[in-house]
Protein backbone atom coordinates (compact mmCIF):
# COMPACT_ATOMS: atom_id res chain seq x y z
CA UNK A 1 0.00 0.00 0.00
CA UNK A 2 2.76 2.42 -0.82
CA UNK A 3 0.92 4.34 -3.48
CA UNK A 4 -2.14 5.16 -1.40
CA UNK A 5 -2.78 8.77 -0.59
CA UNK A 6 -4.65 9.78 2.52
CA UNK A 7 -5.07 8.36 5.97
CA UNK A 8 -7.23 5.33 5.17
CA UNK A 9 -6.20 1.77 5.87
CA UNK A 10 -7.79 -1.64 6.35
CA UNK A 11 -8.44 -0.68 9.97
CA UNK A 12 -10.26 2.55 9.17
CA UNK A 13 -12.19 0.90 6.34
CA UNK A 14 -13.59 -1.78 8.63
CA UNK A 15 -14.16 0.68 11.48
CA UNK A 16 -15.87 3.08 9.11
CA UNK A 17 -18.11 0.38 7.72
CA UNK A 18 -19.14 -0.74 11.22
CA UNK A 19 -19.73 2.87 12.27
CA UNK A 20 -21.85 3.60 9.23
CA UNK A 21 -23.93 0.46 9.78
CA UNK A 22 -24.49 1.18 13.47
CA UNK A 23 -25.34 4.81 12.76
CA UNK A 24 -27.79 3.84 10.03
CA UNK A 25 -29.41 1.34 12.40
CA UNK A 26 -29.65 3.95 15.15
CA UNK A 27 -31.30 6.48 12.86
CA UNK A 28 -33.72 3.92 11.39
CA UNK A 29 -34.76 2.54 14.77
CA UNK A 30 -34.66 5.93 16.48
CA UNK A 31 -37.02 7.53 13.99
CA UNK A 32 -39.53 4.69 14.36
CA UNK A 33 -39.63 4.69 18.16
CA UNK A 34 -43.18 4.94 19.51
CA UNK A 35 -44.42 8.33 20.67
CA UNK A 36 -44.72 8.57 24.45
CA UNK A 37 -47.18 10.18 26.82
CA UNK A 38 -44.83 12.69 28.37
CA UNK A 39 -42.72 13.71 25.41
CA UNK A 40 -44.71 12.77 22.31
CA UNK A 41 -42.48 12.28 19.30
CA UNK A 42 -39.60 14.17 20.86
CA UNK A 43 -38.50 11.11 22.82
CA UNK A 44 -37.07 9.87 19.50
CA UNK A 45 -34.09 12.15 20.04
CA UNK A 46 -32.98 9.81 22.83
CA UNK A 47 -31.41 7.59 20.19
CA UNK A 48 -28.69 10.16 19.51
CA UNK A 49 -28.40 12.72 22.31
CA UNK A 50 -27.10 10.46 25.13
CA UNK A 51 -24.80 8.69 22.69
CA UNK A 52 -23.23 11.99 21.65
CA UNK A 53 -22.74 12.96 25.30
CA UNK A 54 -21.14 9.61 26.06
CA UNK A 55 -18.79 9.92 23.08
CA UNK A 56 -17.67 13.35 24.28
CA UNK A 57 -16.91 11.97 27.77
CA UNK A 58 -15.01 9.11 26.16
CA UNK A 59 -13.03 11.49 23.97
CA UNK A 60 -12.03 13.74 26.89
CA UNK A 61 -11.22 10.69 29.01
CA UNK A 62 -8.89 9.43 26.27
CA UNK A 63 -7.31 12.89 26.08
CA UNK A 64 -6.62 12.84 29.82
CA UNK A 65 -5.27 9.28 29.78
CA UNK A 66 -2.98 10.02 26.84
CA UNK A 67 -1.80 13.21 28.54
CA UNK A 68 -0.96 11.30 31.71
CA UNK A 69 0.95 8.73 29.64
CA UNK A 70 2.93 11.53 28.03
CA UNK A 71 3.76 13.10 31.38
CA UNK A 72 4.86 9.76 32.86
CA UNK A 73 8.56 9.64 31.92
CA UNK A 74 8.64 5.90 31.21
CA UNK A 75 5.84 6.03 28.64
CA UNK A 76 6.65 9.42 27.13
CA UNK A 77 6.16 9.38 23.38
CA UNK A 78 4.95 11.92 20.87
CA UNK A 79 2.19 9.54 19.89
CA UNK A 80 0.36 10.19 23.20
CA UNK A 81 0.49 13.91 22.57
CA UNK A 82 -0.99 13.53 19.09
CA UNK A 83 -3.65 11.17 20.45
CA UNK A 84 -4.60 13.65 23.20
CA UNK A 85 -4.96 16.56 20.79
CA UNK A 86 -6.89 14.58 18.19
CA UNK A 87 -9.26 13.11 20.74
CA UNK A 88 -9.98 16.52 22.27
CA UNK A 89 -10.87 17.97 18.88
CA UNK A 90 -13.35 15.17 18.19
CA UNK A 91 -14.68 15.56 21.74
CA UNK A 92 -15.40 19.22 21.08
CA UNK A 93 -17.43 18.28 17.98
CA UNK A 94 -19.42 15.74 20.01
CA UNK A 95 -19.97 18.20 22.90
CA UNK A 96 -21.23 20.87 20.53
CA UNK A 97 -23.61 18.34 18.97
CA UNK A 98 -24.77 17.22 22.43
CA UNK A 99 -25.64 20.82 23.30
CA UNK A 100 -27.34 21.36 19.93
CA UNK A 101 -29.50 18.22 20.06
CA UNK A 102 -30.30 18.80 23.73
CA UNK A 103 -31.38 22.33 23.00
CA UNK A 104 -33.54 21.18 20.10
CA UNK A 105 -35.16 18.61 22.40
CA UNK A 106 -35.55 21.09 25.25
CA UNK A 107 -37.44 23.72 23.26
CA UNK A 108 -40.57 21.62 22.66
CA UNK A 109 -40.40 19.44 25.79
CA UNK A 110 -39.24 21.75 28.56
CA UNK A 111 -40.49 24.86 26.81
CA UNK A 112 -37.09 26.58 26.69
CA UNK A 113 -33.98 26.30 24.52
CA UNK A 114 -31.63 26.65 27.43
CA UNK A 115 -31.61 26.84 31.22
CA UNK A 116 -28.72 27.38 33.60
CA UNK A 117 -29.10 24.25 35.64
CA UNK A 118 -26.06 22.30 36.80
CA UNK A 119 -25.95 19.83 33.89
CA UNK A 120 -26.31 22.36 31.11
CA UNK A 121 -23.98 24.90 32.71
CA UNK A 122 -21.29 22.28 33.22
CA UNK A 123 -21.67 21.02 29.65
CA UNK A 124 -21.20 24.54 28.35
CA UNK A 125 -18.16 24.97 30.60
CA UNK A 126 -16.78 21.67 29.33
CA UNK A 127 -17.05 22.93 25.75
CA UNK A 128 -15.35 26.22 26.67
CA UNK A 129 -12.56 24.45 28.58
CA UNK A 130 -11.68 22.22 25.65
CA UNK A 131 -11.94 25.05 23.13
CA UNK A 132 -9.31 26.73 25.31
CA UNK A 133 -7.26 23.54 25.30
CA UNK A 134 -7.34 23.41 21.49
CA UNK A 135 -6.36 27.09 21.32
CA UNK A 136 -3.44 26.36 23.64
CA UNK A 137 -2.33 23.57 21.32
CA UNK A 138 -2.39 25.91 18.35
CA UNK A 139 0.08 28.30 19.96
CA UNK A 140 3.32 27.94 18.02
CA UNK A 141 5.87 26.23 20.24
CA UNK A 142 8.46 23.45 20.11
CA UNK A 143 6.81 20.01 20.06
CA UNK A 144 7.91 19.12 23.59
CA UNK A 145 6.80 22.41 25.08
CA UNK A 146 3.41 22.12 23.42
CA UNK A 147 3.01 18.58 24.65
CA UNK A 148 3.86 19.35 28.28
CA UNK A 149 1.71 22.45 28.44
CA UNK A 150 -1.32 20.86 26.85
CA UNK A 151 -0.94 17.65 28.88
CA UNK A 152 -1.14 19.63 32.12
CA UNK A 153 -4.07 21.66 30.82
CA UNK A 154 -5.87 18.45 29.81
CA UNK A 155 -5.40 16.88 33.23
CA UNK A 156 -6.79 20.03 34.87
CA UNK A 157 -9.74 20.18 32.50
CA UNK A 158 -10.85 16.56 32.76
CA UNK A 159 -12.20 17.06 36.31
CA UNK A 160 -15.31 18.58 34.79
CA UNK A 161 -16.30 15.30 33.10
CA UNK A 162 -17.22 13.21 36.19
CA UNK A 163 -18.74 16.24 37.91
CA UNK A 164 -20.90 16.80 34.84
CA UNK A 165 -21.89 13.15 34.70
CA UNK A 166 -23.07 13.06 38.30
CA UNK A 167 -24.39 16.63 38.37
CA UNK A 168 -27.94 15.41 37.80
CA UNK A 169 -27.75 13.48 41.05
CA UNK A 170 -25.75 15.88 43.19
CA UNK A 171 -27.85 18.89 42.39
CA UNK A 172 -31.44 19.39 41.40
CA UNK A 173 -31.59 19.97 37.70
CA UNK A 174 -34.23 20.43 35.07
CA UNK A 175 -32.33 17.80 33.13
CA UNK A 176 -33.52 14.30 33.87
CA UNK A 177 -31.35 11.89 35.84
CA UNK A 178 -28.85 9.48 34.37
CA UNK A 179 -30.92 7.55 31.84
CA UNK A 180 -29.76 4.03 32.62
CA UNK A 181 -30.11 4.45 36.38
CA UNK A 182 -33.66 5.70 36.10
CA UNK A 183 -35.53 3.14 34.09
CA UNK A 184 -37.84 0.58 35.60
CA UNK A 185 -36.91 -2.99 34.65
CA UNK A 186 -40.51 -4.24 34.33
CA UNK A 187 -41.51 -1.65 31.76
CA UNK A 188 -41.40 -3.05 28.20
CA UNK A 189 -41.32 0.36 26.62
CA UNK A 190 -38.35 1.34 28.77
CA UNK A 191 -36.66 -1.76 27.36
CA UNK A 192 -37.14 -0.59 23.77
CA UNK A 193 -35.90 2.89 24.52
CA UNK A 194 -32.90 1.64 26.45
CA UNK A 195 -32.06 -0.76 23.63
CA UNK A 196 -32.11 1.95 20.97
CA UNK A 197 -30.18 4.27 23.25
CA UNK A 198 -27.49 1.63 23.76
CA UNK A 199 -27.28 1.15 19.99
CA UNK A 200 -26.77 4.92 19.78
CA UNK A 201 -23.91 4.63 22.31
CA UNK A 202 -22.32 1.90 20.17
CA UNK A 203 -22.74 3.88 16.96
CA UNK A 204 -21.23 7.05 18.40
CA UNK A 205 -18.35 5.09 19.92
CA UNK A 206 -17.56 3.53 16.54
CA UNK A 207 -17.81 6.90 14.79
CA UNK A 208 -15.45 8.32 17.42
CA UNK A 209 -12.91 5.50 16.94
CA UNK A 210 -12.99 5.86 13.17
CA UNK A 211 -12.54 9.63 13.34
CA UNK A 212 -9.79 9.25 15.93
CA UNK A 213 -7.63 6.96 13.81
CA UNK A 214 -7.89 9.33 10.86
CA UNK A 215 -7.32 12.43 12.97
CA UNK A 216 -4.22 11.02 14.68
CA UNK A 217 -2.72 10.16 11.30
CA UNK A 218 -3.50 13.67 10.05
CA UNK A 219 -1.87 15.14 13.17
CA UNK A 220 1.27 13.08 12.60
CA UNK A 221 1.41 14.24 8.97
CA UNK A 222 1.01 17.85 10.11
CA UNK A 223 3.90 17.57 12.54
CA UNK A 224 6.11 15.82 10.00
CA UNK A 225 5.41 18.45 7.35
CA UNK A 226 6.16 21.20 9.86
CA UNK A 227 9.52 19.62 10.61
CA UNK A 228 10.27 19.16 6.92
CA UNK A 229 9.39 22.72 6.00
CA UNK A 230 11.50 23.92 8.88
CA UNK A 231 14.41 21.82 7.64
CA UNK A 232 13.93 23.12 4.09
CA UNK A 233 13.81 26.71 5.33
CA UNK A 234 16.96 26.24 7.39
CA UNK A 235 18.66 24.67 4.42
CA UNK A 236 17.76 27.56 2.15
CA UNK A 237 18.89 30.04 4.76
CA UNK A 238 22.26 28.27 4.96
CA UNK A 239 22.68 28.24 1.22
CA UNK A 240 21.82 31.93 1.05
CA UNK A 241 24.38 32.61 3.74
CA UNK A 242 27.02 30.76 1.73
CA UNK A 243 26.11 32.48 -1.54
CA UNK A 244 25.68 35.96 -0.12
CA UNK A 245 29.26 37.20 -0.15
Amino acid sequence: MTNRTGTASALTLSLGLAAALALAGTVALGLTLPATVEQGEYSRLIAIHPGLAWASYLAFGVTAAASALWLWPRTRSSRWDLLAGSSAEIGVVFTALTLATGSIWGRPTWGVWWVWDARLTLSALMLALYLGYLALRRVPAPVDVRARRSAIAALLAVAVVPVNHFAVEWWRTLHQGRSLAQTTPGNDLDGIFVGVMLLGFLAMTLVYCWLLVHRVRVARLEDRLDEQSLAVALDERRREAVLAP
Partner: protein
Amino acid sequence: MNGYVAAGYGITLLTLAAYALRVVWRGRSLSRAASEAASGPPVESS
Protein backbone atom coordinates in the same frame (compact mmCIF):
# COMPACT_ATOMS: atom_id res chain seq x y z
CA MET B 1 -42.04 13.79 10.75
CA ASN B 2 -41.76 16.42 13.43
CA GLY B 3 -39.56 19.40 12.68
CA TYR B 4 -37.61 19.38 15.93
CA VAL B 5 -36.86 15.66 15.63
CA ALA B 6 -35.79 16.08 12.02
CA ALA B 7 -33.60 19.04 12.96
CA GLY B 8 -31.92 17.07 15.74
CA TYR B 9 -31.09 14.12 13.52
CA GLY B 10 -30.21 16.34 10.58
CA ILE B 11 -27.79 18.55 12.47
CA THR B 12 -26.05 15.53 13.98
CA LEU B 13 -25.62 13.61 10.74
CA LEU B 14 -24.62 16.66 8.71
CA THR B 15 -22.07 17.89 11.24
CA LEU B 16 -20.49 14.47 11.65
CA ALA B 17 -20.33 14.04 7.87
CA ALA B 18 -18.81 17.49 7.37
CA TYR B 19 -16.20 16.93 10.07
CA ALA B 20 -15.32 13.47 8.74
CA LEU B 21 -14.94 14.82 5.20
CA ARG B 22 -12.72 17.61 6.45
CA VAL B 23 -10.43 15.23 8.31
CA VAL B 24 -10.18 12.74 5.45
CA TRP B 25 -9.67 15.45 2.85
CA ARG B 26 -6.97 17.10 4.94
CA GLY B 27 -5.28 13.73 5.36
CA ARG B 28 -5.21 13.30 1.58
CA SER B 29 -3.80 16.69 0.80
CA LEU B 30 -1.21 16.41 3.57
CA SER B 31 -0.02 12.98 2.54
CA ARG B 32 0.29 14.18 -1.03
CA ALA B 33 2.34 17.14 0.17
CA ALA B 34 4.44 14.85 2.34
CA SER B 35 5.25 12.48 -0.49
CA GLU B 36 6.19 15.44 -2.71
CA ALA B 37 8.41 16.87 0.00
CA ALA B 38 10.03 13.48 0.53
CA SER B 39 10.96 13.24 -3.15
CA GLY B 40 12.62 16.62 -2.90
CA PRO B 41 11.29 20.07 -3.69
CA PRO B 42 10.16 20.59 -7.28
CA VAL B 43 13.09 21.59 -9.46
CA GLU B 44 12.78 25.09 -10.76
CA SER B 45 14.89 26.54 -13.50
CA SER B 46 16.37 29.85 -12.56
